[in-house]
């Protein structure tokens, strides 16, 4: 954006800092979900989900063999969409 490019260096650096911390925030939230579905539901928390039946077994088994993969897919597309939006908000897109 023209407006941003005419800013002083100080303002640009502050923007870059904000952009980066917004990115870090999105990454942390995404990685928490990433860990909960795989290491959590798929492995460590499986005993807690044992009561929920899915097709002859329990929900933890489903998360370990299929569910986590579907969530991973969702996460990557969410991140790509969210970051491309963020790039525009801060005027740092290519």
């Amino acid at each position, binding site marked *: 954006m023209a407006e941003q490019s005419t800013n002083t260096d100080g303002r640009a650096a502050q923007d870059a800092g904000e952009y980066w911390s917004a990115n870090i925030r999105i990454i942390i939230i995404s*990685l928490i979900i990433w860990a909960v579905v795989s290491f959590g539901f798929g*492995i460590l928390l499986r005993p807690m989900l044992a009561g929920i039946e899915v097709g002859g*077994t*329990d929900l933890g088994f489903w998360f370990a063999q299929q569910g986590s993969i579907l969530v991973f897919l969702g996460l*990557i597309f969410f991140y790509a969409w969210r970051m491309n939006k963020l*790039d525009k908000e801060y005027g*740092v897109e290519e």
Partner: protein
Amino acid sequence: MDQFTLNLLFVGASFALYIGIAVWARAGSTSEFYAAGRGVHPVTNGMATAADWMSAASFISMAGLIAFTGYDNSSFLMGWTGGYVLLALLLAPYLRKFGKFTVSEFIGDRFYSPTARLVAVVCLLVASITYVIGQMQGVGIAFGRFLEIDAFWGLLLGSCVVFAYAVFGGMKGVTYTQVAQYCVLILAYTIPAVFISLQLTGTPIPALGLFSETVNADGASSGVYLLTKLDLIVTDLGFASYTEAHKDSLNMVLFTLSLMIGTAGLPHVIMRFFTVPRVSDARWSAGWTLVFIALLYLTAPAVGAMARLNISEMMWPNGVNGEAVSVETIENDARYNWMATWQKTGLLDWEDKNGDGKIQYYNDKSDAMADKAAANGWEGNELTNFNRDILVLANPEIANLPGWVIGLVAAGGLAAALSTAAGLLLAISSAVSHDLLKGQLTPDMSEKSELFAARVSMAVAIVVAVILGLNPPGFAAQTVALAFGLAAASIFPALMMGIFSKRVNNVGAVAGMLAGLIFTLVYIFLHKGWFFIPDTNSFVDTAEGSLLGIQSTAIGAVGAVINFAVAFGVSSVTKETPQEIKDLVESVRTPAGAGSAVDH
């Protein structure tokens, strides 16, 4: 037409296709050889990366490992897909913005040290060569099967084909060839799975069939879930149940984590994200790659479970409490022909130990089965050898599917092994010729001699992989898992710290990479034998017998933690990173001004 001719036809036709594309798109310049001119669309790139990524380990080996272990091997499924989340969020966009050809170039520049670049090259070579060993195992098995020869000769023949193929084109040839290979391998994987899912559950989508009720011969639902039925049969034969957890959670978590981090640290996959035009494309590209990978990975657990059920029922045609299958049936019944063909590869065998004319397949290590065996006069499991790696290739024959499906699967298995082996050889050759020779030893090398050096290093890498592959440290997917552990412990932490920390300096990064790599490599050799030579190991590779209670396939995650800790520790007591490096990190973090990537 007999099956042998049909297999040759399918394999031959698919090879002609790949070689045709490779010739058509033959690389002329070094830039094309390494990175396909950077004009590749995210969807195309995703498909090619998926083919590059899904190797003999995913296609040939993984479902077999899941089939015979069940839930415990879910780590392969979560690990090899979850790594893409790390790649997409933590590495791909930034490395694309950085815009150089290879992973080691980034490490060399970010840590302003030729030593760091050299260490990165070493890490990359160790991980890639271990990975190629796993691929060559898969190539050997696939060639052995479709030519009906011993797996050893299949390995030698296969390595020649892989070499000829990889030398031909560079990345450009490889990118478009790999799109073709993806199509062949995904069809080859899903078509038999759809057939089998229909036979067993009446559901055309295998991923759903896995959680469906089985159907009777007349197509009516039996009211029993496939997984329930499978659990019953395998426990009746004395094996561990399919759906329950038997492995300790610590090893399972660390193993999954090693595969995830390793995925994000493998040079031949990361290189792919240099070939998209823009930073935002790098983000999408990772997503598209996972879409194409997920098509196979959602099917794989169904393939495993259904094959296990089919095999158990074939060996016990009258139910597990009836009579076992007779030797006469195996030798004469056309439905059992696959057993004789696989016997020729040396990967499947049976023996009528008690001479009753029947082949009893059960778990002779189980105490519960000892009484039943004694009562029935069984003298041990008579299906004496069933190599896990043959399961996927044998699957359509086991399910009695038409001959063309079997030929297609043979072509698909080879496509998977070939595409990854080629991608890895490319990563190895670029590491040697571009990073090592041109980057450090002989900087004024001409383009022509650089290409020549690239090809020579491919040949050397193949020879090393074949020699080490004569004593593979496990089934193909397990060998590959070790490669991931090495990449996890060495490359990934350096890349991540290079982007997310301005504090980590040259000395810290070098110390971290070396600590991670050496710790992991030594730990693997202590458990798998030095250079994988049998009987040179000091510890047994089980949760109980191992040095730290962690299996060698899971140690990469620990190596990565050591890498991070050493790098931060050393950096905090040595000189701060210079300002221009801080600016470099700052510029890598924002997409603006990426432009096209440049050479040194």
